[in-house]
């Protein structure tokens, strides 16, 4: 929550330091969690298919904390929040559309042989 200072203008709402530090330690915890889960998944027998969603869920939780409290979205105008979240929607749309598109023709690309490997060319042209 924001601090209440009666003498401040109404568009100015400082976030309490406790909350900021709380969010920071939460973020650190989640960062450690991602590294640990990625390292522990194999020994603990988590199917590899779950690694990616788990990492993305943790990243999204972190993104939520940063947006809501560090970026003051929690107290921001609804229009700003909506505008920003709409950009995320478009990112999803871009990814989904391109995946759908390439999903249709990737197999036809794969049947073509690749060009042969270039012979080991010197990194720098000879003088």
């Amino acid at each position: 929550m924001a601090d209440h200072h009666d003498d401040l203008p109404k568009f100015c709402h400082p976030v309490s330091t406790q909350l900021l530090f709380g969010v920071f330690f939460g973020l650190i915890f989640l960062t450690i969690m991602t590294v640990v889960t990625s390292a522990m998944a194999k020994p603990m027998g988590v199917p590899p298919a779950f690694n990616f969603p788990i990492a993305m869920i943790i990243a999204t939780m972190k993104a939520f904390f940063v947006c809501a409290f560090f970026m003051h979205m929690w107290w921001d105008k609804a229009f700003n929040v909506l505008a920003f979240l709409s950009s995320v929607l478009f990112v999803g749309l871009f990814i989904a559309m391109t995946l759908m598109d390439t999903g249709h023709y990737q197999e036809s690309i794969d049947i073509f042989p690749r060009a042969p490997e270039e012979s080991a060319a010197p990194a720098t042209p000879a003088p």
Partner: protein
Amino acid sequence: MAVVDPTHAHDDHHDHGEFIAHHFEGPEQQFDSGKLGIWLFLITEVLFFSGLFVAYTLYRNHHPEIFEQAHVYLNKYLGGMNTIVLLFSSLTMALAVRAAQLGRNKHCSIYVLITMVCATMFLGVKAVEYSHKWDMGILVRSAFDFTYEHPEQTLVPGLSDYLVYLCVIPAILLIGCIAAMFVLKTSENPNKSKFMGGMSLTVFGYFIGVALGVVFMAAGIGESSKHAGSGATPQPIALYAMTQEKDSQSDHDHESGGKEHHEGDHESVDHKGGDHEGDHEDTEHAHEEGGMGHDGHDDHGHAEHKDPPKFDRDIGIFFSIYYCMTGLHAIHIIAGVIALGWLYWRSLENHWRSDYFGPVDYVGLYWHLVDLIWIYLFPLLYLID
């Protein structure tokens, strides 16, 4: 339309502070306009980065085996440390916004300074990471030329030449800032010298980052870097073993097929199409498949050049994506440091008040977005297994 004499533009206005532009009703309208502006800018930033995220997603979706091979070269602990540095800078940025909102300019300047130092530390660690890869020839696709060996002869013993090159500009900046700090001591405005002092500290942060990264690598945390002259690293050996194994398996598999597989016969294609329905274990799939796709071609390459071992050359595409994403992110960090430098100067000049703190808030939002992008880049690039 009434023409307002600019010299009297302020006459008919209410309590216009020093920094409230005359075309605004008051501080609140100015603040809200600026905020909408910065949000719109951040939206374009997200869409800008989304192109690279699309490239990443497509390539990973179609060739997960490349990512499995490539991510061994990224040190997740170094990346994790960088994440924490960046998160800490986000915290100090949020604290700087709070200080500006409360009109505490001195606190604000200190928090902004810490944020800048963290930013350059991040860049320093990144420089160590980049130079380490360049030494091994891990470059973008077109220049990818992997070698186990680190160069024996370097400009500074124990340090990569590339790292030394990457330190040249910061070193010049550091000397310049320190010199300016002393020269400006004679200036009537003491803030100028103070500002240059802060900027010196900021640039010095880069070298702290470099030192941290070098110590981290030398300690062999995560990815061993004991190959500073002695030859192979454990991980390339593992990768070598992996490719050898694949080699023998595919040789075995394709004894009958021989090298004809490049013709791309249709039975094989159909088989592949059917296979896709059932399982997406692409690596295995590619083994069965042999001639098609990356692994197939890789095998072909191996058959011709048994020694030295070759990796799938398309690992380079992963690193093209890696360099584009992290490089663009690093450019944003540099831009952020410049913007933060401006905030630092204005904090020293005591510009912030509870009805005028917009710039700190806006740069703060930008800075948090840079952090936000890293929050996604870190698991996507470093935590692939």
